[in-house]
């Protein structure tokens, strides 16, 4: 699944470790989501959306 996580993270000047800490996941999990190797669960997707104050479909794209 495509996503804008890396871009959104860069806009806030956060490292993967910073974002991981805010989402309560490992840095490897953040990296895997950004590279599309792992699709987040629904609870995690909601947490990401709330963190960036955006809708899930504005961050993730299954097309």
């Amino acid at each position: 699944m495509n996503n804008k996580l890396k871009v959104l993270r860069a806009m806030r000047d956060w490292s993967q470790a910073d974002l991981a800490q805010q989402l309560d996941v490992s840095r490897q999990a953040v990296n895997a989501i950004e590279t599309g190797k792992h699709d987040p669960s629904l609870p995690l997707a909601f947490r990401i959306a709330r963190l960036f104050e955006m809708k899930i479909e504005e961050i993730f794209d299954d097309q």
Partner: protein
Amino acid sequence: MQKLRKRIQRNYDLLVDIAFWAFMVQSIIPWLRIMGFTKYRFEGPLQTISGVGFFLTWLLVVLLVIARFARDEYAEGLWQRVGRPVIMLLVIAPWIACLAFLINFERDPDAFARWAGQHLPDHIAKVTERAIKDNHPVIETVGIASYFSMVEVLFWTGAYLPFILLGLYKWQRWRDS
């Protein structure tokens, strides 16, 4: 408690790395010996330390595998991906290994006696002796070579499977990075 769980989850991969490299370091000498590059073996206190170290590493790996709370969703997903090939391996490999043992023992009848002499500790030899006298149904049915082939394979599978799982986990993680 929640904070501790989160901290463990964030450091789960570090624990995996520690367990993996501890196992690799402890295995160097035994595997070099098995492959014939050295005759050195741990003795005395070194043997005890090596044995305790292996057991503690093995225990850590087992805990890392079964402790669901220690993993975030990505690590859990990795384990599920590791699980699929391992399940296939567990179904097929022991029988292939047993067959390999049996073929070797059938081709060379003295091979079992040599192997037994080297590998069977005294108490196992005594069990075998008693089993033969008491007409042990399993040994009677499959034969001693088959029985101990299976015992040997099950033992080594049980001892090393956690480390195989660990290696596969690290490999999957590397593929994703």
